[in-house]
């Protein structure tokens, strides 16, 4: 199982801030596409991703137990 955390407008669009998924062997890019479709989310070209609190690229493979964060452009400061 993997956990996906959603923030900012992604959480609003999905209507939830956390999603659990059974499948593994997905890349970050594949995960984004899957969620865009299933939850009708805005295109995630500008959305960064982190696995276990480290930024990763779209090519990174997700492993079982990973916590994925989908991070829209940040606007702190």
């Amino acid at each position, binding site marked *: 199982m993997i956990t996906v955390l959603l923030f900012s407008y992604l959480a609003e669009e999905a209507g939830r801030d956390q999603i659990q998924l059974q499948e593994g062997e997905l890349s970050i890019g594949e995960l984004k596409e899957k969620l865009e479709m299933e939850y009708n989310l805005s295109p995630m070209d500008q959305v960064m991703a982190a696995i276990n609190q480290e930024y990763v690229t779209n090519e990174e493979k997700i492993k079982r137990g990973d916590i994925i964060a989908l991070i829209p452009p940040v606007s702190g*400061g």
Partner: protein
Amino acid sequence: MNTPFFRIAEEPIQVEEVIGLVRRREAGAVTVFMGTVREWTEGVRTSYLDYDAYQPMAVKMMERIGAEVQEHWPHTSIAMAHRVGRVAISDIAVVIAVSSPHRKEAYEANQYAIDRIKEIVPIWKEEGKGDGA
């Protein structure tokens, strides 16, 4: 997960407290940056801002920025704090304090830190459209 030096704050940030963390006898210069909530931006009025963070990662990224600063400007000391939750006009969203033997490094490191915060620290603001009540 918070450390005194890299902190997500649920309550108003006390600037003196953040400054106090970097004061030391070797320092001849301390620079402080405070990001405050601005009422008007390009003709649009803000009532307040709500800041949301992916907290553990936000702290981790602030620590990373601290490490980057140490690497580029080895003689500096840095502390930073970022608010989450509702922040009113004029109130402080972020504070960065840097001390250094000389002032040039203190300015540079401070400016670098706020630029990096705006790039990699997972914090989002949402405009308050109401009356802030």
